[in-house]
């Protein structure tokens, strides 16, 4: 009977038999539980006039132990003028902070603030005091104002031609270390995307941001899920007719960029560059984003949508 050599695609398992047997030895070592703080401040701006429409402040604290909640902490964000924003602990983190499918509970801290509580380019510091006296801190500068140069929206929506690739441009953002584009594609035919959920694709520019992206082609140049490859190939030539896309483009600060970029290689996995220091680790990142909904319709369709007025590029 022929044996299958399947499983991990990575070659290390294939390599190990060449070395002979491997033995795992182990030693018990008690270590204090590690506290990780992940705090973000996101400004949402109108892409047409750059006004700040909302400010979202959130901190998620988790401990590396069986009970991973971090309750009773004092979490504050302080701007350069000394104005302090205290974040309140949520009794249930599930909806706001906890990712779908995650087993960790953690503790979520949020703040309700006016739309323009923080301004672009504000210098902020995060201060976390844990009930046991341990402290964590970090600093961040919010990226500058952000608006689209080519896209025309009305109430955040516009119409694009099917089977066309566009170029979306925006202004260079002061203080931005990277740009992220995310899109959810709705209305794809079942033979392209066999799921009840929208197709989610993302792209990021870390080095020398071009301040523009191809739409939708750039989104399929990033990591594409295995089951989305067929849809991705279809999207190479533009949006199919009838597809609606929720698009977000964000400029992120240094800390956020360092957190999501590929970092130092370690046998245990990815090592992000931390921006929270002290008695724990984590990230304190800030971002400025705008969002849009783009529908793929013929120009003669009477949807009432404004044309996105994006620059068309080759559809090949």
């Amino acid at each position, binding site marked *: 009977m022929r044996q299958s050599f399947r499983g991990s695609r990575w070659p290390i398992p294939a390599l190990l038999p060449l070395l002979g047997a491997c033995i795992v*030895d182990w030693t018990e070592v008690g270590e204090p539980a590690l506290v990780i703080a992940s705090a973000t401040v996101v400004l949402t701006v109108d892409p047409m006039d750059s006004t700040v429409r909302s400010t979202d402040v959130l901190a998620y604290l988790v401990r590396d132990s069986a009970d991973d909640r971090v309750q009773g902490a004092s979490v504050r964000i302080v701007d350069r003028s000394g104005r302090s924003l205290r974040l309140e602990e949520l009794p249930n983190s599930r909806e706001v902070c906890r990712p779908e499918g995650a087993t960790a509970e953690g503790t979520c801290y949020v703040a309700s603030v006016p739309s323009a509580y923080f301004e672009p380019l504000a210098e902020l510091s995060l201060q976390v005091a844990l009930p046991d006296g341990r402290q964590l801190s970090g600093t961040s500068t919010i990226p500058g104002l952000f608006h689209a140069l080519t896209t025309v929206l009305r109430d955040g929506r516009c119409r694009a031609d099917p089977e066309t690739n566009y170029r979306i441009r925006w202004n260079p953002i002061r203080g931005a270390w990277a740009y992220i584009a995310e899109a959810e594609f709705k209305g794809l035919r079942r033979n392209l995307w066999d799921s009840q959920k929208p197709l989610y694709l993302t792209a990021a520019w870390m080095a020398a941001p071009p301040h523009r992206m191809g739409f939708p082609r750039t989104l399929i140049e990033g990591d594409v899920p295995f089951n989305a490859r067929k849809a991705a190939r279809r999207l190479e030539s533009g949006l199919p007719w009838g597809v609606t896309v929720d698009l977000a483009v964000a400029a992120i600060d240094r800390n956020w960029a360092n957190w999501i970029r590929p970092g130092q290689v370690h046998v245990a996995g990815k090592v992000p560059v931390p921006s929270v220091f002290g008695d724990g680790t984590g990230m304190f990142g800030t971002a400025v984003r705008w969002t849009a909904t783009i529908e793929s319709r013929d120009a003669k369709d009477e949807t009432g949508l404004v044309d996105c007025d994006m620059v068309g590029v080759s559809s090949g």
Partner: protein
Amino acid sequence: MLPTRAGLLAALALVTSVIAAPLAAQKPQEVALLRGQTGVEPEPGSLLATPAGLTVGQLPLAAALTRLSERSRVQIAFSPSLLPTGHQVACECATLNIARALDHMLEGTELGYVELGPQVIVVPLAPPEAPRFDATIRGRVRTEVAIPLEDATAILRPAGDSTGERMAFTDGLGFFAFHDLAAGAYELTVGRLGYAGHDEAVTVAPGGVVEVGIALAVRPVPVEGIQVDGLGERDRARFRESAAGAPMEMDRAGVRSIPGAAEADPVRTVDALPGVTRVSEIGASFNVRGGSADQNLVLLDGVPIFNPFHMLGIFSVFNADMVKRTQLRSGGFAPEYGGRASSVLLVESDLGDGKFGVDAGLSLLTARLSVSGGLPEEVRDGFGLAAARWRISGRRSYADVLANPFLSADFPYHLRDRQFGFEAWTRGGSRLGITYYSGTDAFNLTAYERLEHSTRNQELHPEQDVTWRWGNRALGFSWTRPGSNGGSLDVHGSYSRFEGDFNLSEFGSPMLETAIRRLSLGADLEVRPTAAFRWKSGLGLEALEHSDESRGELESLVRSGRSTGLGASAYSQFNWSPNPRWLMEGGLRLDHWFDSGTSTSPRIALKRFLWDGRWAVRLDAGRYVQFLQSVRDESLPIALDSWVLAGNEVTPLVSRQFQGGLEGFFGTDDEWFASAVGFHRGYEGLATRNWADDPGVRSDDFKSGTGRSFGAEFLLRRGKGATKGWVSVSLLKATRKFPHPGRAGIDNIVPAVEYAPAFDRRLALDLVVQRRLPWSVEGGLRWSFGTGLPFTRHATYSVNPRRMIDLRPGGREQVVWLGPRNGERYPAHHRLDISLRKVIRKRWGVVTPWLNVLNVYNRRNVVLFYEYIDYYGQTGRRGLSLVPILPTLGVEVSF
């Protein structure tokens, strides 16, 4: 100025007691200058011509001289203290004159006579004319087919005198020389293992130079067991000739006798030498005296090899069948070696003896074959060659060949390498050498991807390719013109490249392409104007190019980019022995890189021989500059080098090094060698990746730091006899200092982080024993101990980056938190490996089955820790141990 006659007589009066003379004013010092003669033909009428008229039988010499003076009536003066005690003479001198009588009486003594005025004075004989030690006998030793023989032993004895024996060894061009000889007849004996001895009588005139050309005939001799005695003699020769610490050398037999994981590995064995450590138990890259692995220059017949490892560093690319010897220069190396700061590992190919031969081997990992031979006479004649030899080898792993019939998809990995060496000698004596190496590792997982797709009823896209392929290719040539006095002119060039291609898929999956290429051309001139002075200078040009392209997660390994560099170098060095007690080496190296400017590397070494010349103290200092650095994280067990060339982004690495110690030979026939060495190294311009660099700025992609290492090494080695080996103890403390990786630019304060690098093994002990055992079995044993290497504590945890579309938590991602860099240490490492090789001689050749047992007592040496949380929420740490007790076996065939 000669003393006056009156003065001499006066002086003589002070020391004589037999005959008093009015000479009191003479000075004793002047008397001491008088020298006598024997066999003098006296002038007629002189005192010496006076008839002796004496016959005496067995009288003391003093009495006989007194009797002679009385009978002849000639005043004969002598000092009794000069006469040998107990010397009795008998003389039938009645018919002889005084000169002949004195000849007879003084025979067998150191005395003579001189006629001085009215006296004949008996005084010490005039010394013979002082011999001149200004003659030279030199020559070259070749095989019958005119191939120069290295390491042949030349022994020179004065004719008829076995006590004045001198010994010399031939160099790589077969040259040997005996300087400062007295004129006369000598017997020259030249021999080498495997060749018939050669005896020749040589006569040299005062100040003369005699050149001999010697051809040794092949005469195979059965050798039982390990034969590395010649290495012991080479040790002695290097000890005498090298001021900056004798390089440590291992020949093929030595390499094979040290147990290896899968097969003999010339590079893996170097960590048994003092001062050498290895970060990973499974990796072959090594660290010398606190230097990182990229600071080691690895040369195959003079051609640099980048990433000289298979299987991402598990063992080296060098096939032991092709290796004649390896030589490690762990510090104080001469200016002729540039570009690396820590050590030079020379790997020298063995091209055979010009006759057809085959070596083959089979291990658990690879099958290998090498064939050697020469050129037919008509071909040699056609090219004007006196001799030529070559060897070609191939090696390939065979696990895929064995496994594929039983697998649904092809086994994904194989390695192969090919090596070729050629050497020819023109009739004019010039040497032409060519070296070629090509090696490839390949992981091809496309078949598994296809299989995985098929289980999902999906088709793999035709463009999808999941292949990793990497390897070296190197080509070198050299032309050498030997000089008559042992020097040479050498012109050489080389091309060496390493390329790796790691494609995983389409659609933005991780991808990495890396390449480094080097082209060089150079010339060296060595002259030996005197026996005590050697001078060597050289010029070189090199072009370097490296390019990396990475995507996805592999961006962490290698940063995308391309850079080129053009460099020129010049050096001049000398080796001077002003007298037998002192040896001095020194020189200067200039390197110019067109993006980095010029750097100067002076180096000096002094050696003072002690006692009978078998011991010496030495001290050397030098500056070493490295323009090409690897920013590979050495704490990873296996990885590729990621190179960065000095220029706009990083500065050249500069290392200032001092070392000194005591070393010498002892024991019968000097079979023992011992050394104690201390060293200090400072580093500036060490480069490392800046993980928090601004993605839009290239100039901050690397950080520059400093480093320091110091320590001591002790070696006791037995190089001769049935049991050979060594024990070495190495002490090291190394540190590195870099700006904090995450805080630069945030607080406008960049604190420095000082830590022990991954290779900072504070204490290492190695015991290596090679012994001939009964039944033609060669035994090898290695026990190594090392204190724990530093590591960085880490923990894994999940993060949930927010989606920008709805600001909800995105998918969970597992990331790693790192504690203080290298803030903890692994447990101590120790391991015992043994090897047994049975030499079976057949009429057609030699078969050598071998068995290695690694980690005989199954020590679980931890290579990495990982954190975990158990069911009850308790955190802990698990250690991963590779290499359990592991027997490996293989066979070698040679004919």
